[in-house]
């Protein structure tokens, strides 16, 4: 009886954690759309949304209501079942990634030993949503978008994994909390500087994995109408966007945790600016994540889209060798530290 109540209590705590994380992340995702429109508007000398609510702050809610009440169209040529589940695959796997990410030294939904690998696994599965959406729509634009997505994700998963291998080797653990602790104990306080090559490779791959500009070839509007989401409308299209924005947060969290020291600040920085010591760990992490979200938006407003052959050459000819070099460098550094 006692063990049953213990189990129920554990389940209740986990459900509460899930509710807190989901609530915060979904709200963030909705307002990232607003922030993106405002920031890109300012970069292009426009105002962005201004009409709904003060400073257009209620625009995400208006967009959500519009998407929910729009007609859900399924083309005759579409594979109905796959067409319906594809957006859910994208969203579910993006959200599941959040379950292994620690937001505080003592707060994560699941404390998994192989946290980094679990994120890579779910990120790999999430791409099936995009690929299958492209196939099931029964449109050649969507199919081309799906094909592009398959090739892009396959090519960029390798350098992404290889760059993370350097981080794992340095921390000697797959657990994200251990990776953060290893950075906090190091002299520089973050992996981004000693592993600058790996950091740049990971950053570029994060853009490609989330299908963000300049790697948004699967949904290139000037070539493929809207790529894999051409035939989607209403709330299913909204789910795709939600999945994309949550993936952006997952990647930003992962970069912050694996390369920028997560919720810790380097010792040299806190000794230079002692008032930073009072900042709560979660706030430090959130600030780092916001920096990367801003970078995602900034890059979208600045860089033109790559050609597909350029995209492929960059992965196979530049990023993979660079990630391998980074891995060898970290192995040497580790060997030097040990001897």
């Amino acid at each position: 009886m006692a063990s049953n109540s213990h189990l129920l209590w554990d389940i209740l705590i986990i459900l509460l954690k899930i509710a807190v994380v989901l609530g915060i992340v979904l709200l963030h995702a909705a307002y990232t759309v607003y922030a993106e429109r405002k920031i890109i508007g300012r970069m292009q000398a426009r105002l962005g949304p201004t009409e709904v609510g003060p400073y257009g702050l209620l625009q995400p809610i208006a967009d959500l209501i519009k998407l929910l009440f729009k007609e859900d169209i399924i083309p005759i040529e579409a594979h109905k079942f796959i067409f319906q589940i594809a957006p859910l695959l994208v969203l579910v796997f993006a959200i599941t990634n959040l379950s292994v990410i620690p937001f505080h030294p003592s707060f994560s939904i699941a404390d998994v030993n192989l946290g980094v690998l679990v994120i890579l696994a779910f990120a790999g599965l999430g791409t099936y949503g995009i690929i299958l959406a492209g196939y099931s729509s029964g449109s050649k634009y969507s199919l081309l978008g799906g094909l592009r997505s398959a090739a892009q994700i396959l090519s960029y998963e390798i350098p992404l994994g290889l760059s993370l291998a350097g981080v794992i080797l340095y921390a000697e653990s797959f657990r994200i909390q251990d990776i953060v602790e290893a950075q906090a104990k190091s002299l520089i306080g973050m992996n981004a500087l000693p592993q600058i090559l790996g950091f740049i490779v990971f950053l570029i791959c994060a853009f490609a994995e989330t299908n963000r500009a300049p790697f948004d070839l699967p949904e290139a509007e000037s070539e493929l109408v809207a790529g894999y989401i051409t035939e989607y409308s209403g709330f299913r299209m909204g789910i795709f966007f939600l999945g994309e924005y949550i993936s952006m947060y997952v990647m930003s969290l992962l970069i912050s945790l694996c390369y920028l020291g997560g919720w810790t600040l380097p010792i040299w920085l806190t000794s230079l600016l002692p008032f930073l010591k009072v900042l709560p760990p979660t706030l430090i992490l959130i600030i780092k994540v916001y920096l990367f979200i801003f970078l995602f938006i900034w890059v979208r407003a600045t860089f033109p889209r790559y050609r597909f052959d350029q995209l492929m050459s960059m992965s196979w000819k530049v990023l993979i060798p660079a990630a391998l070099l980074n891995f060898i460098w970290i192995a040497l550094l580790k060997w030097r530290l040990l001897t």
Partner: protein
Amino acid sequence: MIERAIALLIFTTLFFIFTLFTFFFRHLVYQFLCILVLMVLQGILYLYLNAEFLAAIQVIVYAGAILVMFLFTLFLFPEEDLRDVKGDFRSLRYTSFLPVALFIFLFLWELIRGIPESYLPQKIYFDLREMASLLFNEYWIILFILAFILSFPMVALYVFFKEERENGNS
């Protein structure tokens, strides 16, 4: 413990169901989706053997990368070639009768015989490793025949494509 056993039962049942679905679907993309689910389920079964690393690699490499290449290849086919895979079942039906009958007979025989006393029921039902050692030590003939029967889908695919190629040539 009991919730682990129930979950294992559900996953293994799903494993068998999706194996059968792989064979019975008449569309290559749907068959592919079943294989994808099987790869993920295989990863979950590795977790029951406390092989977490292998489980993660199974999903990243097989489900996440190799199957994407499979799907990429399928997309290059015209839609008509993907659906309604045709072929001659007759030869397969005749050759499969004997092993299936033998499997059913041995399965019923072992059910009557029961599990040997050296295996504790609690260990068998709650520990996947113990269950595996029981299956491979005591019921290896049935497993061998089952594996033989489960290789039929591969033979069937060969028959389908051979038929199609011959029809295409004529």
